[in-house]
């Protein structure tokens, strides 16, 4: 594990904190019914997006899943445009045509997210194919859940990516559940990395969701990818603190319990990294984050609705 200089740690903390607090605010607002879109929160999982995206260059791409707020923000996506999109406003990053599951931010090379699990994996590889042809060493980091690895398209994609040595970093956020179904009900074995390696793709498991470990492993992979080694794969264990979709918690329905949550909370990246910073510095970051979020929410509240006369826009590009 390389030592990180303080400015890096502050930057990482800021990203973690921004995501955590933005999603807590979404959860707070949600019961008012102003966000009429199913939200899948990443609270608890921020370290993966932040660790990976911090290792990316600005001109690299990221492809998030429908649980997309974290990767969107970690890659530098516009917070105002995200809140406006949640509110269904015309200033949303997808002009109110996407909703929570379809954030996009091409000015920060954030590929549009999709609500159908696994479908963005090959789409992201299409970007990687274009980047390979371009030859500037740019990379696509593509996110997928543990559940997405059960879709056949995942394997088709691994084979193609390796065969064409595409500049792609696969990032599997293994949070042990697909909705309420635990791995044991879905995976014949947990030998995912070993399996991915048989495609000729270096694969690494990162069990503790340590943001610095994720960052450094991602950086190491990215260096090889940029050098033309072809794709790499990270399986990052993590844990979703809230319910699968929606703002609440769900430890009382039998499918999991708080004992399972606790160790993940103990090693929470937001608090542990925060605690390691100079308290004054931390307070400054926290205040800036709060101000930014408040401004984004206020802007979303005030923003215009899309004009209903534009319903038929964007069916076809011309």
């Amino acid at each position, binding site marked *: 594990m390389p030592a990180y200089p303080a400015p890096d740690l502050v930057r990482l903390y800021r990203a973690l904190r921004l995501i955590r607090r933005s999603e807590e605010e979404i959860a707070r607002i949600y019961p008012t019914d102003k966000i009429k879109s*199913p939200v899948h929160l990443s609270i608890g999982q921020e370290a993966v997006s932040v660790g990976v995206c911090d290792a990316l260059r600005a001109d690299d791409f990221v492809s998030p899943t429908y649980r997309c707020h974290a990767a969107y923000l970690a890659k530098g996506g516009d917070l105002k445009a995200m809140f406006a999109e949640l509110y269904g406003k015309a200033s949303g990053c997808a002009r109110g045509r996407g909703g*929570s*599951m379809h954030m996009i931010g091409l000015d920060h090379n954030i590929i549009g997210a999709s609500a159908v699990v696994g479908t963005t994996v090959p789409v992201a590889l299409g970007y990687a194919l274009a980047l390979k042809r371009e030859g500037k060493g740019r990379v696509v980091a593509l996110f997928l859940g543990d559940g997405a690895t059960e879709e056949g398209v995942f394997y088709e994609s691994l084979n193609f990516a390796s065969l064409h040595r595409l500049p792609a970093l696969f990032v599997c956020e293994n949070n042990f559940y697909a909705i309420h179904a635990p791995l044991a009900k879905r995976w014949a074995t947990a030998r995912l990395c070993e399996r991915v390696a048989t495609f000729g793709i270096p694969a690494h498991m990162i069990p503790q969701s340590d943001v610095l470990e994720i960052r450094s492993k991602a950086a190491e992979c990215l260096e090889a990818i940029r050098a033309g080694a072809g794709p790499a794969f990270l399986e990052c264990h993590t844990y979703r603190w809230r319910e699968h979709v929606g703002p609440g918690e769900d430890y009382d329905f039998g499918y999991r319990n708080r004992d399972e949550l606790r160790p993940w909370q103990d090693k929470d990246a937001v608090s542990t990294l925060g605690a390691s910073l100079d308290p004054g510095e931390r307070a400054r970051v926290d205040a800036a984050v709060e101000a930014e979020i408040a401004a984004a929410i206020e802007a979303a509240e005030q923003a215009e609705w899309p004009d209903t006369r534009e319903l038929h826009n964007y069916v076809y590009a011309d």
Partner: protein
Amino acid sequence: MSMPTDGGRLLRYVDALREGIAQEMERDPRVFLFGLDVDDHKGIQGSTLGLLDQFGPERVFGTPMSEDAMTGVAIGAAMAGLRPIHVHIRMDFLLLCMNQLINIAAKAHSMYGGAVRVPLVVRSMIGKSWGQGAQHSQALYSMFMHVPGLKVVAPSNANDAKGCMIAAIRDDNPVIFVEHRLLYPTQAVVPESSYTVEFGRARVCARGKDITLVGVSNMVVECLRARELLLDAGIEAEVIDPISLAPLDSTTVLESALRTRRLLVADNTWTNCGASAEILARVAESGGVEAGVRMARIGFAATTCPPSPPLENEFYPNPAKIASAAYALVRGNNDDWAPDPERAALSYQLQFRGPF
């Protein structure tokens, strides 16, 4: 159609589905139910709750997220003599298993010269979006109506839901079973005992002499509300529920349309090559033209479903829009009557509220 022997009681659509499944699983040990999330604490909005306890994990089980292979497994199990019910929480996900459904399930009986049967029920939910947007809002049944060998049903009330479910399970063919989420809480009188609703027989839900409204699935409810609004303008609409889309009873629609001389089909999906196109075409080619039946369709706007509330409102048909379109057909296009906004607002179906 097997007749219920008891009077029944008020039951919600969701409970009627579950009761139909449970009764068939009780009666026939070959029936099993599987699919993503059928065995969790939400139980597909309640429609599978309790079945795991009652029938055990061999007959009620969740699956990996592998829609394509799971469909193949269902088909093979059906060929081997079992009677699977495969559940999808959204119809959009059927796009992942079109190959199995269309290249195998629809064709197996025919392409093996009758040697096998595929008694498979594929349940899937459709809905009215509530911000779910492009990929969680589609009702793709016309794709299945296109292909010989598949049956397609879309019951609009709890009574038909139970009867169609039992009929679908007993059917020796693959049946695509379409359930609109807004219908789940709606109640109807449902017999406790087992009964079937025969496919290929439309039902006249309300009589009328001025126009024939055909509604598919939840649009039956919206047509009935439009009928109320139209009464204000002195127009009596006849409302027809096809119940099953393949086989499609266009005869009942035709008979009605020949009487009313106007036909409006309201669908839960796009009109291009949709169920509404098929109904109009059938009426047009079998006497509707000679009788001068004026026809129109109403469905989703010809665009991708937008989650933003004002756009979403514009996107969907509703009772007021149906009533206006019907009025135009009856009175001529120039007159643009619209229903009283307050009454129209009341007639909106309460929308499902997320998260789901």
